[in-house]
Structure formats: structure tokens, C-alpha cells
């Protein structure tokens, strides 16, 4: 998505820093807009990642192959 964002933990840490800076005020308008833009980017990244994963259950067998679990747990899904 964005090569400047490493992972969630990094994204959220950066987002926290940005919010803190913005809340402290005393920033030039341009700087605060720049930070805001970055903040929106980060929060969008987090939201997207939250939603983009889809439910999936896989089985890792002894040979190291990954297979979908299929109907094995379907009755538990209700």
C-alpha cells in the first residue's frame, strides 16, 4: 500500500506522535497540514488492513503444505 509504512505497530506509533504534535499546537499551518495528511494516510492504512483480511482457516501439514481447512470447522461458524 505505502512503502513508507512498515506495519501496524509502526503506523500506530507514528500516528500517535503526529496527533500529539498537532494537539500541542504551535505548528506552522503548512507543517500541521502536512502532518495531518500523513496522519490520514496512516489511519487509512490501519483501517484498510483491519478490513482487508478475510476469514480463512488453513491447515499446515507435516510436509509444510498449507491447505484450506474446508468444511472441517464449518459447523462451528454459527
Amino acid at each position: 500500500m505505502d512503502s513508507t509504512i512498515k506495519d501496524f505497530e509502526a503506523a500506530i506509533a507514528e500516528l500517535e506522535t503526529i496527533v500529539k504534535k498537532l494537539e500541542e499546537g504551535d505548528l506552522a499551518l503548512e507543517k500541521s497540514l502536512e502532518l495531518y495528511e500523513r496522519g490520514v494516510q496512516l489511519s487509512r492504512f490501519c483501517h484498510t488492513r483491519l478490513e482487508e483480511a478475510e476469514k480463512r482457516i488453513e491447515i499446515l501439514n507435516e510436509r509444510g503444505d498449507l491447505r484450506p481447512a474446508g468444511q472441517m470447522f464449518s459447523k462451528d461458524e454459527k
Partner: protein
Amino acid sequence: MSSQFDLFGTPEPELEQEPEPARASAASARERQRTVLSVSDLTANIRGILENAYSEVWIEAEISNCRLWNTGHLYFTLKDPGAQIKAVMFKSDVRSLKFKPEDGLHVVVRGRISVYEPKGEYQIVCERMEPHGLGALQLAFDQLKRRLQAEGLFDATRKRALPSLPRKIGIVTSLDGAAIRDIIKVLGRRYPNAHLVIRPARVQGEGAAAEVARGIRDIVAVAGIDVVIVGRGGGSIEDLWAFNDEGVARAIAASPVPIISAVGHEVDFTIADFAADVRAPTPSAAAEIVVARKEDFCNHIERLSQRLTGAVRGSVARLESRVHVLNRRPGFAGWSARLALRGRHCAETTYALRHAARSSVSRRLRAFQALRLQLDQYDLRRRLGSVRARLVGVDGTLRAAAMHRHHAAEARLQNCAARLDSLSPLAVLGRGYAVVWDDTRTRVVRRASEVARGDGVRITLSEGELTCQVVKTDGLDN
């Protein structure tokens, strides 16, 4: 003969003390029945007797001199205050031990007596061993826990934080157990888009520990797995034993991703619990922990997003109001007019500056030209000519003047000479006058009284001089 027995400090054989007749008859009886055995035969007999009589014995004793050979067999001594017996436990039985035999440990063993013929030794071959009092499993647990703890495997500093949002959640457990269903139920309800990877492993019985350990090692190698749940549902201490295994503990400790242990709640803690980054009391609880992290994360992002927008709105509003306030400050009112004024002033200054620069240059140019002219007039060659002409003129004049002065001087000299001639006393002498000097010729003698009779005088004539002596003085002035 007796002295030899003395040598060993042993009492003399009782036989020696038997009465003579009895001794003789007994001896003759023995003579008749005498069968001579080899050491091997005897030992074989003993072995047969002992091994038959003690094919299964239980002994309670303390372990000492315990040593595990690299063949895998365990050699030790079993003792109580009164006696001791050598003991061995073969590799296959050592492997099934749940705890580690140590010196000083009080144990109950089951075994059989065997004789080692080459050395004539008997020993007990142990097949089972359990700690006396404490259960074997409990002892093994305590031993392993103590050892891994000393190694630092359970240190709090080793514990890693769980990821907020795992890309994939690994699960190592049995596919048949309740654990996997419990985990899927919780995640299905509260983390619907979770991506699970399950590594099936038997969680009880022989070989279960090795399967769990390998399962952990395998699953942490799957790309994208950020957290692993290892566990099973509740059971007896024996059922849970795989999670008290050293191999499992080490696989957990070596994992590059955080591990949540989730072993049913019958015992307080398993070794796996101590080694794990997070301990959940049940598999459901483990799933809840993962979900809670995710929900915390979502809420956190939500709050941060709101704060972000709020902060920027606030910041923009603050800046706006500042602009507004500044706009209305009196000092700001004539700002553009002042700016225009400054602009004009600037233009004017520029013009003046340029003008000044230009006029300064032309003024200097003029001065230069004047100076140049003057310089031309002072041209050295021209001046040299005129100097030379003047010098020639002056020279002529000087020479004329000198000549003139010379002639005048000559005339004056002749005049003076003529006049001097007329005044010369010598001219008077020419007319017959003479001058009388004293004899030193320094003083002219004007009166006769100035000399006495006999004095020498000199008389200068017109031509020549006389040296005379006064004969007589005659005062005319008297």
C-alpha cells in the same frame, strides 16, 4: 595356616575348633560327596538361584553415585543406612523416566537381581523407578522447572508483547480436541476476518510432546504468522504432560513470534505456561486475548483518527483566528499603503543611487581629463628643452658677468698698484730716505733716545740694508 588368617584379621575357621572325632567323621563324609566346581559353574549356579528368587523385587532406597553413561544406561547405587546394592537401568527404561534420578533422591524401584559373572558381582536391574512420597511427575516437573528457570528461560525480560493485529494466527493443537473448536468459536464471533493456520499435533500420549514441539517449530516458520496459540483442553496431570516437556518449552522459547500457552486449567501452570510469552488459562481465553488486542487496536485507531481531525481543525481554527485578530490590529491597517510607499521610496532611492553613480563617474572623468591636460603640459621632454635653453642662457650671462668682473678687477688692481706705488715708503727711500730699525728689525726707531750707545740698528736703504752700531746718541728733541 593360622598365621595367615591372622594376617587378614579374621577369626579362625570354626572347623578348626571342632572336636577331633566329629571332625574326622565329617571330613570323611565330605570326602565321599566331594564334587569340585569351577568358579564359572559356581557363579552360574548362584546366578540361577538369585535371578530366580528375585525376578521381581521392589526396593525403597536412596540413590548415590548416580551416573548416566554415554551408552544411555544409568548406573547407580541404592542404599540405606545398613547396606547398599549396585544398580543399573538400561537405556530403554531410562527414556521412560519422567524425572531425572539424582544422588540423594529417595526412590522406590522395581527390578530384578542379576549377577555379573566376570566380576562375581550381583546388582539390581531397575525397570521402573519413581520418587518416594512425591509423585514422579511432580518431581520431574519441579526438576525441569528449576533447571529451565536457572537457565533464564522463564525470565520476564524474554516475554514479548502480542501483536495488535496479527496477519495470521497460528494454532498448534489437536484437530479432535475441544481446544480448536473453542478458539474458532471465539474468533468467529469477535474477529470474523481472522486468518488462522492450524498445525495439528497430538496433545497427549506417547510422542505427543515431540509432536507439539515440532508443530511449534513448523508453524512459526510460516510467513505472516504473528502469534501462535499452543494448547489443549483440560485433563489430568498425565494428560497434560506433553506441556511439561523440555522440548516443548525450548520450542516456545526459541520461537521468533510471541506464543500464547493455553493448556486446560486443571493444574495451575505447566512448563509451557512458564516459557510462553502470555499464559492463558484455557484455549478460549487465549482467543479472547488475541481478540482483545485487536479490539483495543481498533479503538485506538478510531480515537487517534478523531484526535487527528480534531487537532487539525483546532489548529486551523487557531491560525484563522490569529490571522483575523492580526488583520484588525491598527498597526496592520495602513499596511498596503505603507508597502506602496516603501516601494516608491525604494524606486526613488534606486534612481538616486543610479544617478549619483553616473554623475560621480562623469565628474571623475572630467577631473581626469583636466589632470591629463596638466600632465601633458608638464611633459618632461618639452620641459627639458626649455630648461636646457635657460641653462645655456644663464651660462652665457654667467660667463659675461665673470668676464666683466675680471676686467673691472684688473683695472682696479692697476689703479691700486699705481696708488700703492705712490704711497710706498720705498719710493721715499728712492728719494734718499732711509728707515732705521732696532736690531731685531721689528721696530722703527724714530727717536735717538730709543737706542743707546753700542746698540745695533738696521738701516733700510732704497736698495739694500745696513747693520750698524750706535756710536753716539744726540737728542734733537731736547
